[in-house]
Structures are given as C-alpha cells and as structure tokens.
C-alpha cells in the first residue's frame, strides 16, 4: 500500500543580538545562572517591555532574503501558559499580524537512498514572527524541586513556519540545512545547534495518495539534522503501522529519544493548546518604514542561491561544486578571496578547497573559520601552479607545509627547492642523456612499443628530482624519441 508523507517545519532561531528582545540584559551564552536575568526577564511587577531594534532588523533581513513581504505594521500578542521557566505566565509573541509574511526557500535535495538524483525544490514559508525565548529548567538538583535559570528568558527568537511542502525526511533535512545556512549567511543567528540557537519542531502526517491530510503529530525540539532524519523515519513508520493495524492517529506533541531512536508522546492536557492569545497592551504596534526596509536591503550580502548561479554562469563551475562552495558564507568568502582576479583558475581553486582543504579540515576536526591557512596563502600557491613554478606534486608539498607550519607559498617553494625546471635547455640535456644511456629501449620504443614512454618519463623525472615541468618534459621526450 502506498503512503504519502507530509512534513512541515517550525524553526526557532535565536537572533544574534547583544541584548534581549525587550530589555537591555546581555544574551551572551554560558553565563552563571540568573546573572543575565534582569527585572524584565524575571517579570518583576511593574516592568515594561521595550522592543530591541536589532531584533526587528534581523527579522527584516530574513524576510528580504526569502522574498517575503515585510509587514509595515505588526502586533505583539500574549500567548498564555503556565510554566516556571516563563515567569510572566505568558510569552510575548506575534499571532495574526507577524512581522514577516509569506516567502520561499529553494533547496537542493540529496535523496538518502537508492540511485535517485539530487533535485531542486521550493518550500513555501508561511510566516516568520518575533517572540521571546523562555528560561531553562534544571532538574535533578535537590529532591522534589526544579531549578530555574532565567538567563535565556527574553532572548529574541524568530520562529520560521513552513507550509507542509516536504514529503520525505530528506526534503525536511535539506530545508532545515538550507535555512541554517541562510540565517548564518545573512548574520542573524549563529546557528549553534548544541547551544540551542537553531531548534526545529517537525510536523509529520501520512495519507494515502489523493486523500485529505492526515492527523499530524509534532516532534519537538530537534537540535541535530541526524536526529531529525531518524525521528521522521521512525515517526512515519509508526504512523503507517498504527493505521495499517486499524489504529487512529491522535494529534500530539512528541519527543525523540536519540538513545533509543524512538518517538514518544509528551504528557498532554486537553487545554494545553488554548493559549488565549490577545494583543499585548504593554506594546504598541510595530511600524516599519519603507526607508528602513530599503536601508536593510542595502546591507544584505549576495545570497547563496545567487552566488551559486553566478559561479556556474560566470566561472564555469559545475552546479555541484557551486553548491558546496556556497554551503557557508565562510567557504564562499574563502573561495572568492583565494581566487582573486584569476577567474580563469576557478575550477582548480574550487578543486583545492573542496578537495585538500576540506579533507584536511575534516581530519583535524576544524571548520572553515578555524582553517590554519588563509585565503591569501592558498591564492599565492594557486598563482605558482598557474605560472608553472610548481608542479602538482610540488603544490601538495607546499600545501602540507603551509598547513603544518604556515608561511607563504613563495617562501616554502624557495626553502624546499620545489621550483620546477621549466628551462627547456636543461630538460633537453637531461633527456639526451637518458636516450643515450638506454639505446636498446629507445629502439624498442621506436619499433612500436609505445608503452615504454612512461618508463622514459619516470627516468627523466627521477633525474630532475621531480622538478621538471611535466608538460614540457612530455613534449620534449616525444620529440626526441621520435628521432
């Protein structure tokens, strides 16, 4: 029996402001408990929220980056529920008038199994709204009590809600990754998933083709792409098994347990979702002028998709290379800086970054921002490959040295004597000697044993201590062996 999977995502991104959304308390991660919980964060009576311009600006950036309409007037609402990490008894959020309207994000999907080819898909974004984060509950300190740390309370969040446009775990993960790249790219969120800066809620339902939407269950708070895929796979199978064995799906909020790989329903109360939203009388409507929007638009960097398209059309890179180079802004910046004006070298530059640089970063467990060599160093080396100063094997040696000890390509080439011999006179002399010393093999070659060519190349390379310019050596050898 065929089943269709329907997935929508709600992503909470912590905005990278210095201060909280409604007060001037710091949002720095990792401070001692409650040292950044000011009077507003702990909801002392009489305090009033004052909206952070930096949070609004980041929301505008996101809207512009996803082609969404920015609401020139939006409203903050109270979402009422009781939980100790939310001391006001309500969360300030946005309800029917969010700051960012409908937008879209185009994603590249790599199917997880089989020989299926990667494909492109556009996921619609329903809306994005500003809200405040809650504090943290710390369990297991003393018997019968829960500790509350309100440092995180009031941290600005942009909740990004997608349409249920995804129909596989692969698509959901591709969307989440694209969003993760985008928010870091435009500098509105640090994307640190361990610290909870980027948290995903996944709504999953299944249905038979052509049928109306099935009942959805919401997997809460996924903070890794791997867990997201596992959780969706498990949940989809569970829903299909439940329906096929005659059961019904009930709307529920569920948690994924990474240790068992299973999902389970959270305890729910019938009233849990009656949040009694109403406009927060403490906050006036947020008005955003066209001038402000245009000013923010001017600060937006070239977006990943535009960059990808440009790398393909202007630099002649493959779509695959272009998508890898734009996986993060650091990677793209590194590529462009290393390449400089030498646009003709784009392919070789891309190969080095996607190949050696990425592999070495992986081996050392580093990311692009921690790369021990900078773009100028790599660019300097690429220049020396292009002008024939070093061979490919010489370049590898330069790269290894650069990585381990630092230094410019020119200094390393000089110190290690890696400059290849491009002096045709010197190569000719060397080839003449080899031909003279191996008369029998030369005869064999000339009588049709073409395979011996490699033997001569080997000898010549050895004689030049690997420094002969390979292309030149080939030409000269061919000419001389032809007699």
């Amino acid at each position, binding site marked *: 029996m065929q089943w269709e999977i329907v997935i929508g995502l709600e992503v909470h991104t912590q905005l990278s402001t210095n201060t909280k959304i409604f*007060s001037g308390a*710091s949002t720095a991660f990792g401070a001692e408990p*409650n*040292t950044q919980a000011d009077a507003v964060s702990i909801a002392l009576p009489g305090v009033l929220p*004052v909206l952070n311009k930096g949070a*609004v600006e980041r929301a505008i950036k996101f809207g512009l980056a996803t082609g969404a309409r920015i609401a020139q007037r939006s409203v903050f609402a109270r979402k009422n529920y009781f939980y100790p990490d939310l001391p006001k008894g309500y969360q300030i959020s946005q309800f029917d008038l969010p700051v960012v309207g409908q937008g879209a994000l185009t994603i590249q999907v790599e199917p997880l199994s089989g020989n299926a080819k990667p494909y492109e898909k556009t996921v619609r974004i329903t809306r994005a709204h500003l809200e405040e984060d809650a504090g943290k509950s710390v*369990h297991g300190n003393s018997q019968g009590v829960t500790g*509350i740390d309100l440092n995180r309370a009031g941290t600005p969040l942009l909740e990004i809600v997608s349409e249920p446009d995804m129909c596989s775990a692969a698509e959901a993960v591709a969307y989440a990754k694209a969003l993760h790249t985008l928010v870091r790219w435009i500098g509105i969120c640090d994307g640190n998933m361990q610290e909870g800066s980027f948290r995903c809620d996944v709504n999953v339902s299944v249905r038979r083709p052509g049928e109306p939407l099935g009942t959805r269950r919401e997997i809460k708070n996924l903070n890794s792409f791997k867990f997201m895929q596992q959780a969706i796979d498990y949940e989809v199978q569970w829903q299909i098994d439940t329906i096929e064995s005659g059961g019904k799906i009930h709307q529920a909020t569920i948690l994924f347990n990474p240790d068992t790989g299973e999902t389970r329903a959270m305890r729910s109360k019938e009233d849990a979702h009656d949040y009694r939203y*109403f406009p927060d009388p403490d906050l006036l409507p*947020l008005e955003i002028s066209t001038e402000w929007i245009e000013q923010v638009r001017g600060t937006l960097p070239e977006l990943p998709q535009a960059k990808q398209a440009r790398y393909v059309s202007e630099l002649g890179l493959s779509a695959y290379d272009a998508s890898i180079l734009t996986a993060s802004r650091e990677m793209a910046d590194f590529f462009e800086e290393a390449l400089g004006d030498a646009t003709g070298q784009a392919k070789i530059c891309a190969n080095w970054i996607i190949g050696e640089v990425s592999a070495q970063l992986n081996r050392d467990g580093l990311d692009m921002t921690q790369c021990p060599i900078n773009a100028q160093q790599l660019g300097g080396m690429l220049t020396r490959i292009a002008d024939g100063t070093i061979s490919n094997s010489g370049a590898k040696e330069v790269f290894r040295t650069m990585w381990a000890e630092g230094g410019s390509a020119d200094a390393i080439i000089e110190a290690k004597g890696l400059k290849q011999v491009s002096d045709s006179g010197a190569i000719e002399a060397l080839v003449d000697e080899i031909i003279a010393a191996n008369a029998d093999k030369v005869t064999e070659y000339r009588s049709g044993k073409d395979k011996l060519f490699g033997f001569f190349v080997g000898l010549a390379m050895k004689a030049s201590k690997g420094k002969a310019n390979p292309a030149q050596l080939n030409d000269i050898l061919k000419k001389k062996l032809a007699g």
Partner: protein
Amino acid sequence: MRPNKRFMIPYRARFDKALNPFMSLSPADVEKVARLARLAMTDQELRAARDQLNNIFGLIAEMQAVDTAGIEPMSHAQDVAQRLREDKVTETNQREAFQAIAPQVENGLYLVPQVIE
C-alpha cells in the same frame, strides 16, 4: 468601572461569542477560563463571575452594533507606534538583590516545586 481596554480590541478569533449578542457564557465556559488562569473558584464565585462577564459581553455587543465598515481596526487604544531600543547592554547583574526576595534559591537557581514533562 472603566471598561477593560482589552475588550475594545476587535480580535476576531477570541470573541466569536461576543459577536453574537444573543449568546452568553455558560457556567462551563467560566469554569474553563478559570482553570486556564489557574483560579480556584467556588460555585458562588463562578456564578458571580459569569454574570459579570456576561455584562461585559453586553457592552461588547453594544459596541459591535456600531457600523465600523471601512474603519481600520486598532490593536492598541493609542494610535502611536512602538518606540525601539538600541541593541546595547544596559543592565548589570543584580542577581543577589533579586534572589534576596525569592522564596528558595540554590547555586544561583530559583527553586520551584518539581516540574515533570
């Protein structure tokens, strides 16, 4: 008594009942609202609250009867926009002062009766 500001806000989703002047709150409605607000109320209090709330709804019904066609709804009683704050840290650590009035603290944490998910 001044009318509650909140009820002056046209907020469609919340006031379905208010839109219909013939509709009034049942005791069960009041009980539910009380439960959501964590208010323990006696039967007598529930009845009193129901009567008061129905009176408020009467007032809303009167307002709803006014022809507001073509008038932009307001989400605040004052027709002014939100002033924004620069993103600069202005608060200092006052944990000690705040925790001096908390019922129970430990290692900098506020302690509350155990919460289980």
